[in-house]
């Protein structure tokens, strides 16, 4: 977006500057304003004054210095200047043009010094005196074209040129902004939409435009509405299906309870198996409902402060109790108190899911290490919960996918360990809702490390 803006800006700027400069040049070539005006009331005044000045210092200067200063004067005033002695010879030994001779004659005769005849180069002449009082005649003319183009000459033209550039720049900026601003708005809306905000639309400032960008904005809005209705319909379907499954499942459980009470001992094993499967279904539906709730676009975290350290300690305690069944334990290491902001129930279920997963996968008799501390990513402080098991780990090619719903690394074995395959997906969603993230990696000496990070807000919100 920036480059588009810059491109338009630079292109327009150059174009404008060239057009304005060309226009200015054309105008100057039309000679709307007489060229020689302003030279102290008569054309060539600069030349004479420069010549007289040079003469004034003639006594002190060497011949070379005089030549130098005269040439300088000729250059800066764009003229030719001759300085004549009493014999009408140029001091630098140059030949005087015939017209100049006429003018000099007139001056010596005491006539007016400006007798230009139309169609000829205007020559001017006047007396000059060195400081010692020696008299000379200075005669000069403005050098005729071809002159260098006026805008290439530094000096008086710098300011107008700067004006041209600035004006061109301003016009180009307005133009570039006018083109890119609606595109930028469109892009913001697209980004928000892609990030999961299905309510994102292009505002009326774009949608009401009658040009092609306005068309694009309206098309985007139509598309967004369409996608939103599809996605919400799909989510609602999943949620409704899960909800509707609850009722028959509740009845199934009750019927099962009645059946196992009435049935003889030979049916017990089968009924237990049915109960186990029913419980699995139960779990699955519960987690599906949690997941659909998290995916709903209106899910917003409540901003209440949560002592994450205490929360993790609670969960670790429960998990330790559960781990004893497998002769494992859960060790908690706290390096600092972390307070985060968000939804406590959500964070609890996220960390609980990761931790129970670790307890389920660690080898019998080993321990699961839970650490909680702070780290910084350069921009802000993060609370980091790291959970490490001593199990087989996850093959590298699967490691990115374990947070996908229903993803199983190895079907048969994972099912034995319980769980329905949604726990880590819920944890990942919960992390995302809290602007955090979750990663997994294999430890170098075996086992899986899952790191759960949530940004911490300024500690002044901590009331404790």
């Amino acid at each position, binding site marked *: 977006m920036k480059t588009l803006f810059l491109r338009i800006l630079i292109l327009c700027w150059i174009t404008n500057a060239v057009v304005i400069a060309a226009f200015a040049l054309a105008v100057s070539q039309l000679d709307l304003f007489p060229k020689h005006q302003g030279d102290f009331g008569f054309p060539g005044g600069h030349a004479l004054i420069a010549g007289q000045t040079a003469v004034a210092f003639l006594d002190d200067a060497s011949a070379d210095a005089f030549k130098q200063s005269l040439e300088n004067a000729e250059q800066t005033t764009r003229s030719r200047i001759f300085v004549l002695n009493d014999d009408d010879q140029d001091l630098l030994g140059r030949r005087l043009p015939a017209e100049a001779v006429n003018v000099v004659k007139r001056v010596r005769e005491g006539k007016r010094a400006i007798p230009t005849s139309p169609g000829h180069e205007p020559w001017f002449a006047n007396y000059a005196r060195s400081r010692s009082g020696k008299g000379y005649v200075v005669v000069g003319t403005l050098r005729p074209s071809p002159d260098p183009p006026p805008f290439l000459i530094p000096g008086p033209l710098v300011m107008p040129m700067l004006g041209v550039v600035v004006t061109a720049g301003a016009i180009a900026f307005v133009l570039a902004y006018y083109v890119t601003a609606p595109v930028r708005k469109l892009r913001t809306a697209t980004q928000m939409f892609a990030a999961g905000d299905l309510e994102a639309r292009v505002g009326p400032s774009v949608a009401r435009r009658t040009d092609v960008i306005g068309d694009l904005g309206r098309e985007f809005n139509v598309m967004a509405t369409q996608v939103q209705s599809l996605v919400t319909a799909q989510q609602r379907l999943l949620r409704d299906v899960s*909800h509707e499954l*609850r*009722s028959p*499942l*509740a*009845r*199934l*459980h*009750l*019927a*099962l*309870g*009645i059946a196992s*009470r009435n049935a003889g001992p030979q049916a017990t094993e089968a009924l237990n198996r049915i*109960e186990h499967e029913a*419980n699995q279904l*139960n779990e699955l*539906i*519960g*987690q*599906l*409902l*949690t*997941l659909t*709730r998290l995916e709903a676009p209106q899910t917003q975290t409540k901003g209440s402060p949560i002592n994450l350290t*205490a929360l993790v*300690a*609670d*969960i670790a*305690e*429960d*998990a330790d*109790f*559960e781990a004893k069944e497998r002769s494992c334990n859960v060790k908690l290491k706290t390096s600092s108190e972390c307070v985060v902001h968000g939804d406590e*129930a*959500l964070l*609890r*279920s996220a960390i*609980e899911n990761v931790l129970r997963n670790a307890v389920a996968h660690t080898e019998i008799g080993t321990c699961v290490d839970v650490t909680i501390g702070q780290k910084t990513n350069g921009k802000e402080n993060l609370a980091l919960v790291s959970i490490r098991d001593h199990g087989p780990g996850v093959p590298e090619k699967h490691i990115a996918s374990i947070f996908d719903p229903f993803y199983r690394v190895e079907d048969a074995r994972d099912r034995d360990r319980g769980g329905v395959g949604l726990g880590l997906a819920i944890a990942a969603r919960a992390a995302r809702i809290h602007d955090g993230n979750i990663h997994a990696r294999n430890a170098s000496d075996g086992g899986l490390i899952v790191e759960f990070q949530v940004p911490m807000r300024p500690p002044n919100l901590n009331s404790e």
Partner: protein
Amino acid sequence: MSMAEKTTIRLDRLLIVDDDVKLCDLVREYLGPEGFEVDAVHGGKSGLARALSGDYALIVLDVMLPGINGFDVLRRIRSESDVPVLMLTARGDDIGRVVGLEIGADDYLPKPFIPRELVARIRAILRRSMRSSGKQQSGSVGGNLTVGDVEIDVGSRIVRRAGATVDLTGVEFALLEVLLRSAGNVICREELSKKVLGRSLTPYDRSLDMHVSNLRKKLGHRVDEVDRIKTVRGVGYLYTLASESNKATPVE
């Protein structure tokens, strides 16, 4: 306040409010041999009326009801009666659970539930309410209990803090009573759960903590710059002996 205290209530009569007719039938069939007589209603309004009739020892209330939802029914029940209520919440809906307990449900059970669990929860709640109503009748354990700025009348179940009455649910009252009786000592969560919820603690069940947090909210988190109810991590809870800390320095 008055309904639950009627001595005519039979402790085996339950009311289930759920729009699933077949489920209600099954619950009745399951709970029959367990010694309960179950009536069922399928709508929020009729459920509310029956719940307030005073005929039942306990109400099993589903959150999802046609017409008026379970939370509203509970809220209206609580405005008139202390009858124990067991909420059936949607699985995966933690917020519903918290809201239910805050409004004054005695316990909750995620639906679909395991029937054994339902029976256990019902028995736990009834045991507790029986205990407290027994106390009221005999008056033997009644009387006032005062710790710091909080005063409870065990007989009339009235709680005052600095003279002002505080509205507590049945569970919260039971919890406060247990905490106050052992004020200054740590009570482990297991014991609290048994005494207050009538069941032993299961991992990942945070309802006890939720009741404690509700109690803190209602009574105020701090008294004399000290936490009123302290969490002793890994063990349980402690009610600060504020009556002593009034005069002396707080015990740490």
